[in-house]
């Protein structure tokens, strides 16, 4: 099914605004997406009609809020085909979800001489926690290298793992290169080797149909704000058996069963990992974002992004002096196009494009080691979502030509 992008655009109030007198062309979706009216309304509706704390209330508002909160969890579980809602833990964002695994599973299980397997394309969120753990435990971090087309070098995949590899972690989709990693294949190898496998799905869940059981990963982390939902909500999916064994992350209210002066026992999953009052309003609104994406169909979202990325790669490649990163085939990448243009610095490009109403990102995209591997100080990055059009790609290309002319004057 082809999506009706013009009618989708009408659901996003912000797309009507102008920036510097020009229509907004929002191409910074990998940083955060815009929000449809349905999500904004869900927030307002909660605060206007049934704002209350959850789980402990004996009154009507509290029951309604609890039901809506837990309903959002069930929607998230279904969205990524998790076996049950109890394997869905709400966090603040992807970063917190990964840190949760590092602090609870990691500190209890990684020992001196063990190894943690990452890739050269890690976002700092999936790098710093593991570097810290390795430093604390005397473990080592090893990185899977990149091929010339910026995919993972997986020849001899089985040799990448050894008996001391306790956990492997990597992005589903690279936020800097767009590369989609073959996570099913790597998960299978990890399983054979008895290594846990965590997928940083911050750029996966928003853009691809995700099936955590199909991937067969142990953990999958992502953020609501990159998938039409509000800021302040992240998700950690974990295999229930693992979550059962893990110690709690934060201690406090809600995560306990029985508390005495001497100690405490822990609540059931998933609440064992949700200490204190959670982000009720934003979780409920995230449920509305999931409904919206389900309504469109993730296969259709993906197909739209392939088309727009294909068009962008073609148009951009016609610019003289452009260097693009990531796999050339749009089917092997998400809707992210990173580039450098002549000798223009990405920040100068970003500032001039902004004056044409075009919002892109410039810099290292929280992947400093990757930039070093690419031999650049940074890149300019356009990233697409379901409301972007090929006309907007044309505006980007025209604005890039204008940028070049501006610095030539």
């Amino acid at each position, binding site marked *: 099914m082809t999506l009706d992008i013009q009618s989708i655009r009408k659901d996003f109030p912000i797309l009507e605004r102008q920036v*510097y*007198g020009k229509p907004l062309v929002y191409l910074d979706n990998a940083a955060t997406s815009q929000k449809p009216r349905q999500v904004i309304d869900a927030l307002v509706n909660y605060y206007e009609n049934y704002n209350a704390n959850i789980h402990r209330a004996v009154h009507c508002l509290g029951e309604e809020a609890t039901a809506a909160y837990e309903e959002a969890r069930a929607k998230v579980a279904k969205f990524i085909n998790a076996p049950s809602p109890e394997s869905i833990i709400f966090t603040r964002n992807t970063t917190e979800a990964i840190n949760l695994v590092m602090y609870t599973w990691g500190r209890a299980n990684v020992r001196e001489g063990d190894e943690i397997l990452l890739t050269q394309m890690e976002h700092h969120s999936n790098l710093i926690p593991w570097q810290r753990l390795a430093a604390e435990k005397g473990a080592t971090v090893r990185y899977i290298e990149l091929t010339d087309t910026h995919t993972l070098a997986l020849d001899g995949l089985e040799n990448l793992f050894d008996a001391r590899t306790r956990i492997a972690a990597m992005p589903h989709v690279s936020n800097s290169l767009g590369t989609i990693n073959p996570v099913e294949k790597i998960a299978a190898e990890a399983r054979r080797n008895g290594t846990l496998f965590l997928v940083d799905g911050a750029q996966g869940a928003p853009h691809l149909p995700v099936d955590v059981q199909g991937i067969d990963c142990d953990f999958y982390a992502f953020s609501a704000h990159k998938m039409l939902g509000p800021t302040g909500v992240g998700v950690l999916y974990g295999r229930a058996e693992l979550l059962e064994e893990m110690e709690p992350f934060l201690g406090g209210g809600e995560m306990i069963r029985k508390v005495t002066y001497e100690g405490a026992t822990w609540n059931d999953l998933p609440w064992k990992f949700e200490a204190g009052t959670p982000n009720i309003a934003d979780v409920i609104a995230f449920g509305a974002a999931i409904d919206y994406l389900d309504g469109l169909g993730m296969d259709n979202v993906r197909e739209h992004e392939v088309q727009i990325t294909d068009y962008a790669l073609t148009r951009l490649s016609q610019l003289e002096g452009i260097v693009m990163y990531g796999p050339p085939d749009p089917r092997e990448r998400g809707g992210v196009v990173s580039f450098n243009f002549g000798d223009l*610095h*990405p*920040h*100068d490009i970003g*500032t*001039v494009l902004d*004056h044409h109403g075009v919002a892109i990102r*410039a*810099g*290292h995209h929280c992947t*400093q080691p990757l*930039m070093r591997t690419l031999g650049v*100080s*940074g890149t300019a990055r356009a990233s697409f979502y379901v409301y972007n059009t090929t006309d907007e790609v044309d505006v980007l290309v025209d604005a890039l030509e204008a940028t070049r002319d*501006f*610095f030539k*004057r």
Partner: protein
Amino acid sequence: MSLREEYARQEAELDDLYKEIILDHYRNPRHRGSLPALSATHEGLNPLCGDEVTVELLVDGNRVTDVAYKGSGCSISQSSASMMTEAINGKPLDEVKRLSEAFTAMMRGEESIDPESLGDLEALSGVRKFPVRVKCATLAWHTLDEALEEAGL
């Protein structure tokens, strides 16, 4: 303001950021490279943008007698470094420090500073309208301050 006037104002803002003299320093950097002998140096980083500037100074008595910079980054960070080398070369240290203070005060938008009193450096005052880029313009000067402090000058 009509839309047309608004457009004109925004175009002007961009021209204000990228003044001719700034682009000239970016394309034809002055004092770029390293010194054979030096009294003070520091490498400055802007972690947000990845801009890098290394400043080297030769000081004789109480005067900067030679200066060089190298680095990589956006046009604002690199041209600001180039302009700085011209502004401080041959100057007594106390005047260099006064200039550095005045420049960073100007970039903070402090009223007490008359940009005109800063000579060519005034050209960078347009950066103030782009808050995220102010750090690019001040990087070289902060690096200079660090270099002097580390050398006890």
